[in-house]
């Protein structure tokens, strides 16, 4: 799918994954993350956005050992290795849920062009800013 799309435009398209579901009640969150990683492995330019209950996916300290499901919260830490550098989190969604940036996992990527310095990935944005980002993305996928 993407390969052809990428080639026809002669440049890499930007894929925005909009994640709107809470992490453990359904498979959406885990599958959205895996699809994004697979896309990134094929050198798509991947940007993640978390809105609505999707912001709960990034909550720190998640530990599923007592509910017997896979602790895939750890996998968000691999996004940087897959060259994903940008995560947008909608401010309004956080506020409604009693969360702040401090409640989220401190995700970082290593900047290859800057001596592997660790840089934060999470950007808190307003609904207005996110609307602009969605509008500017080549491909938007919703999970």
């Amino acid at each position, binding site marked *: 799918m993407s390969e052809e799309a990428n080639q026809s435009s002669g440049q890499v398209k930007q894929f925005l994954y909009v994640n709107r579901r809470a992490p453990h009640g359904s498979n959406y969150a885990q599958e959205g993350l895996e699809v994004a*990683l697979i896309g990134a492995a094929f050198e798509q330019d991947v940007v993640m956005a978390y809105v609505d209950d999707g912001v709960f996916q990034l909550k720190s300290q998640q530990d599923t050992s007592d509910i017997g499901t896979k602790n895939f919260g750890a996998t968000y830490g691999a996004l940087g290795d897959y060259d994903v550098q940008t995560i947008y989190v909608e401010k309004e969604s956080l506020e409604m849920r009693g969360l702040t940036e401090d409640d989220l996992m401190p995700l970082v990527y290593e900047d290859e062009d800057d001596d592997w310095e660790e840089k934060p990935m999470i950007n808190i944005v307003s609904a207005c800013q996110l609307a602009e980002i969605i509008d500017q993305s080549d491909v938007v996928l919703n999970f």
Partner: protein
Amino acid sequence: MAIEVNGQSFETDEEGYLANLSDWNLELAGAMAKEDGCDLTDNHWEVVNFLREYYDEYQIAPAVRVLTKAIGKRLGKEKGNSKYLYELFPYGPAKQACKYAGLPKPTGCV
């Protein structure tokens, strides 16, 4: 499917990947490699162990590009390149090494 080691049978999928991560042990890794006609050297083990650690931390097996970059960072540029890794694992470094590490197929591998 299954693989036999020391008279014990371990379940695998149709491509030979271990069904249960917890079944894994050193002998089993060696046996899986032997089936592919591959003798595991220290250089192989370096990669296999790296993959197990990566999985332990992030709960996924990394795609080959990610593996290559990470190996380069950890073990040096002379090992963090596809030529070196493909010589060790001719069927595809991430794919083949993940198998011996008892992990599922890498995320980003079809």
